[in-house]
């Protein structure tokens, strides 16, 4: 019995070490972002907000942040309804093509991102969408659709379709019955879908490297170039802000699911 508990302690210690490996690298950037020096020393010798003000006072970084934010918001506004409509169609249909359509909507997750980027770059080079907001939004809609479809399809599977049928048999048309009966009940999955699509668009880097440029560079593209060329703690400040944004969004998602469950 004693040996058993000893092995348990060893196992617990190993798991803790692995969890430290998982979480510490994300946390380590926070103190660096408040560092007072140019160099990436850890722990920093003194603390200041100097890299946050460097970010805010640099027009190029601010412009990139704005581009990323605009692109992400527009992506969510378009990708969510498109994905919800497609998920609804997949859920309702019993046609043989359903499987293939679903598979096709998952395709952006299966194709290596670098190949997606080269393909989109090619299409945009011909249609003149390179270095434009429209181009970035369209590409992010494509990349976000699998997340929206996965989340909303799961929501629809847990929803009792008979309720919508009842609404329709009582004289509501299909669109209204969806909006009034179905949508409120799959709300949590739609909100998750929107948040997934938003984080996806905010974090997307590889496609943006190829297609964004000129006055419309995304934050991630600028970060990538900065990381490759010269590293200064401004990136730590931006990283901390991005991580904080992700955390807030995920908490939002968890709460919306909890609220949906208790309602």
């Amino acid at each position, binding site marked *: 019995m004693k040996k058993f508990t000893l092995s348990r302690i060893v196992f617990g210690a190993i798991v803790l070490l692995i*969890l430290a490996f*998982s979480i510490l690298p994300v946390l380590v950037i926070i103190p660096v972002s408040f560092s007072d020096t140019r160099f990436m020393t850890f722990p920093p010798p003194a603390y200041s907000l100097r890299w946050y003000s460097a970010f805010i006072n640099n027009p190029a970084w601010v412009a990139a942040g704005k581009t990323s934010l605009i692109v992400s918001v527009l992506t969510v506004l378009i990708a969510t309804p498109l994905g919800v409509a497609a998920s609804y169609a997949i859920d309702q249909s019993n046609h043989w093509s359903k499987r293939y359509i679903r598979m096709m909507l998952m395709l952006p997750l299966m194709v290596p991102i670098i190949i997606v980027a080269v393909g989109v770059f090619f299409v945009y080079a011909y249609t003149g969408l390179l270095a434009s907001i429209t181009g970035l939004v369209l590409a992010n809609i494509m990349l976000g659709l699998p997340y929206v479809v996965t989340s909303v399809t799961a929501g629809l599977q847990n929803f009792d379709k008979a309720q919508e049928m009842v609404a329709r048999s009582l004289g509501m048309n299909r669109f209204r019955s969806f909006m009034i009966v179905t949508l409120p009940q799959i709300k949590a999955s739609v909100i998750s879908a929107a948040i997934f699509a938003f984080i996806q668009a905010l974090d997307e880097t590889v496609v943006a490297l190829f297609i964004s440029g000129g006055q419309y560079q995304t934050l991630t593209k600028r970060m990538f170039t900065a990381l490759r060329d010269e590293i200064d703690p401004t990136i730590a400040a931006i990283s901390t802000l991005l991580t904080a944004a992700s955390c807030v969004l995920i908490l939002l998602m968890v709460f919306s699911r909890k609220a949906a469950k208790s309602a």
Partner: protein
Amino acid sequence: MKTVAADLSSTTPMKTVSADPAVAHQWREQRLMLLLASPAILVIVVLLVMPLSWLFWQSIYADGFTFEHYRRILTEDIYRTTFFLTFRISVVVTLLALALGYPVAYAAAALPRRWSMMVLAMVILPFWTSVLVRAYAWLILLQHNGLVNKLLLWLGLIDSPLPLVHNELGTIIATVHILLPFMVLPLYSAMQKIPADLTLAGASLGGSPLHVFLRVFLPLSLNGVLAGVTLVFVLCLGFYITPELMGGGRTIMVSMVVSRNVELYNQWGAGSAVSVVLLICVFAIFYIVGRVIPLERILGTK
């Protein structure tokens, strides 16, 4: 012969006689569903399916059909070493991720719910932070006078700082970290379904903990292992950002060859051929694994 004719006569009226209201309804329904799905499908076709077919075409056609690009991939050393290196890194990363992910998933599945949520949160938080942020964090930690080297020096394990970054090792460490959640989540979802009674039953029948684990728990978790291994391996094959930032220009993976051919050298044919080979590898893996476990289960975690 007769049966075929009978079959034909029974199926053809479906389309022509739409007077049957049930059939007409079915048709309307299907048209509506197609219409609803079409905007999403259109985006994917225009931005992904079309360019992929074009890449394929470009890889075999340049003023006439040519397999020159494929011949070069098979014969030239640069391509061969790149593919070999990519597969080697992917295998190492997948094994490491499995070795690190399995105990964590096991702990998450075995612990009471509150604690298991904590464990999962610690795995998922990095999952939702940008890949760039994590690559940057590893650059800080692994650099010449970074935290890891300082720690190793302090412990007296090394005499001078190790070159941990801007090489293959740095790429592997950061990639394992980035792909770890893709291993843990499918493992956890498979392990969670294994009833605790089974392990108890094994123990009550006299099996030692190790024996019970090897004969009962491990085989039941293999579905999750397969899903996790596939996902991590495939993602690693196409990894771009991390090797580019952590590899220091010496660890050239397949995705970097694609990007360089297109961006730097404007060699669309060569870039396309490499893409097609990479794509075929990825789809072959998905296809083979898809025969054992449904593809949606694998992609669900991503």
